[in-house]
């Protein structure tokens, strides 16, 4: 419900209207009148609105927020009339089952209201003078410009197969990139450059120094920041026509269905078999085309798994993940940044072709193997495996691949509550720090956790996947703890 009010705003009454049994979190924002503006003292201000349009635009923003975010309710009220310093000018409230979505949606709504709702203000300055009536926001947005007419995209619009219609398709499309690493960074850069309208970045890791040689979205000053958030900030600067959303969590079978919903294509830029299987299974179940890639030193592969294509699922090709530790990852085997870059750009190219509706280009039925050392490539045709679970009309949800990696969920959380949990950040994240870990902590089950989930998996692999030892796949913040695990809690 979007409202305008000439009376002072009553936050508890407004919040009360959002009460719902499914709501576990309420996030509110209040804008207050402050006593200065651009260095001049302010004693108060007047707000005026073009009410019918303001209400319509405001309702539209709340409706769009309910589409974009998994929230249970949203409301906003803008004050009109004469306000003094400290008065509430606007109130925004969002409820959701889990706090993350409410935080994101609340900010998004406030930004959109400020940008789009026609409200004007006149400031009263301390010296008795007044400002002119100015738009209360950052400038009202007129009808969005036609992306096909934007000089930024002129070269690609000229390409046969794109054209103005293709450019508008890209502007209306949404891509989820999971993992803002060596593959995800270049993929995201090119998707933002191409003008894909909505990009969502999911990653629970923080930027580390050893990432920078290949994860070229990040600057040295980003060290320690969450990758999804740092990537989204950088991409906004690259192309402000793209709507960016950061999901600062590790992907898991639990959150993937929610992440994937509303996207046209998913790019998997993760680097472990656990996540590749989890993402492939979730995309298959959602019917969302998935662009995958993998790297081993100078070699890589890329392919599209698309339920509509008839070439089977990821499990048709690789029925089960390999045993832990038998195939090295990038941290163990090393790689050039350019190898990840080449494969990531190939993924972005596949995504663009899917969005543009090109029939022949996307690797829906083939895997492309690339040897970046010699430049040789090989396309191999994939086929459905007759007895794969995906061959049935109503495929059962695939089981999560784990090998001792615990994805958030009831079973894993029950195990964690019984277990001894150690945070690897207290011991150092390098392998040398883990030598005597198993002797120091003989308790079983033993759960390893870290800031984002990558180090714990790496440690589990380095320790050789001992019996009774597990890696928590998401960050330590998401561990179930006392008072956090009860299902009635909103987090």
């Amino acid at each position: 419900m979007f409202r305008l009010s000439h009376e002072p705003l009553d936050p508890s009454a407004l919040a009360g209207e959002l009460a719902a049994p499914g709501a576990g979190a309420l996030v509110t924002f209040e804008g207050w009148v402050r006593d200065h503006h651009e260095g001049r003292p302010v004693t108060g201000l007047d707000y005026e609105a073009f009410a019918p349009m303001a209400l319509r635009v405001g309702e539209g923003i709340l409706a769009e927020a309910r589409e974009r975010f998994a929230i249970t309710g949203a409301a906003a009220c803008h004050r009109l009339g004469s306000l003094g310093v400290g008065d509430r000018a606007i109130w925004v409230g969002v409820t959701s089952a889990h706090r993350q979505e409410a935080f994101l949606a609340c900010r998004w709504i406030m930004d959109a209201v400020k940008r789009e709702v026609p409200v004007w203000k006149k400031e009263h300055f301390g010296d008795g003078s007044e400002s002119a009536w100015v738009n209360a926001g950052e400038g009202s947005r007129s009808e969005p410009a036609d992306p096909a007419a934007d000089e930024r995209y002129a070269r690609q619009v000229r390409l046969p197969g794109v054209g103005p219609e293709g450019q508008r398709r890209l502007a209306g499309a949404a891509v989820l990139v999971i993992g803002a690493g060596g593959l995800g960074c270049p993929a995201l850069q090119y998707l933002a450059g191409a003008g894909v309208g909505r990009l969502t970045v999911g990653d629970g890791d923080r930027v580390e120094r050893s990432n920078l040689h290949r994860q070229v979205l990040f600057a040295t000053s980003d060290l320690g920041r969450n990758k999804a958030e740092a990537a989204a900030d950088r991409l906004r600067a690259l192309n402000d026509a793209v709507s960016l959303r950061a999901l600062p969590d590790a992907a898991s079978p639990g959150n993937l269905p929610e992440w994937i919903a509303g996207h046209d294509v998913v790019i998997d830029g993760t680097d472990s078999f656990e996540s590749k299987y989890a993402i492939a299974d979730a995309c298959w179940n959602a019917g969302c085309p998935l662009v995958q890639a993998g790297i081993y030193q100078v070699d890589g592969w890329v392919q599209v798994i698309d339920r509509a294509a008839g070439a089977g699922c990821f499990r048709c090709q690789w029925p089960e993940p390999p045993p832990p530790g038998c195939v090295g990852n990038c941290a163990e085997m090393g790689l050039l940044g350019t190898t990840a870059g080449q494969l990531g750009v190939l993924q972005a190219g596949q995504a663009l072709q899917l969005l543009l509706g090109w029939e022949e280009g996307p690797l829906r039925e083939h895997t492309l193997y690339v040897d970046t050392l010699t430049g040789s490539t090989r396309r191999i045709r994939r086929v459905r495996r007759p007895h794969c679970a995906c061959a049935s009309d109503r495929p059962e949800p695939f089981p999560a691949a784990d090998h001792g990696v615990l994805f958030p969920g009831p079973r894993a959380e029950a195990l964690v509550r019984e277990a001894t949990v150690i945070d690897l950040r207290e011991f150092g994240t390098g392998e040398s720090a883990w030598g005597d870990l198993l002797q120091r902590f003989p308790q079983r089950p033993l759960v390893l956790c870290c800031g984002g989930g990558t180090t714990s998996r790496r440690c589990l692999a380095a320790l050789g996947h001992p019996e009774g030892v597990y890696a928590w796949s998401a960050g330590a913040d998401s561990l179930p703890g006392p008072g956090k695990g009860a299902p009635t809690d909103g987090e």
Partner: protein
Amino acid sequence: MKVKTVHLQYFALFRERAGRAAETRQTRAGTLGELYAELREAYGFPLGPEQVRAAVGEEYRDLEAAVEDGMQVVFLPPVAGG
């Protein structure tokens, strides 16, 4: 069993372990699975046959498929890095 000539290519881990990207080899293996077992023995590939894909020409093939004289075979390990 008849000796056949096969043209092999290796990818990623297999190329590393075999120390070569390609070779032409004489074999008595009847199936691709037997051929893989022979190579695993020769080069110490760390993966069991259930973890490996083989492609003949431009298509994935089951390891039960017969080895034919003059075949172009690629063995592919699973690769997840990124």
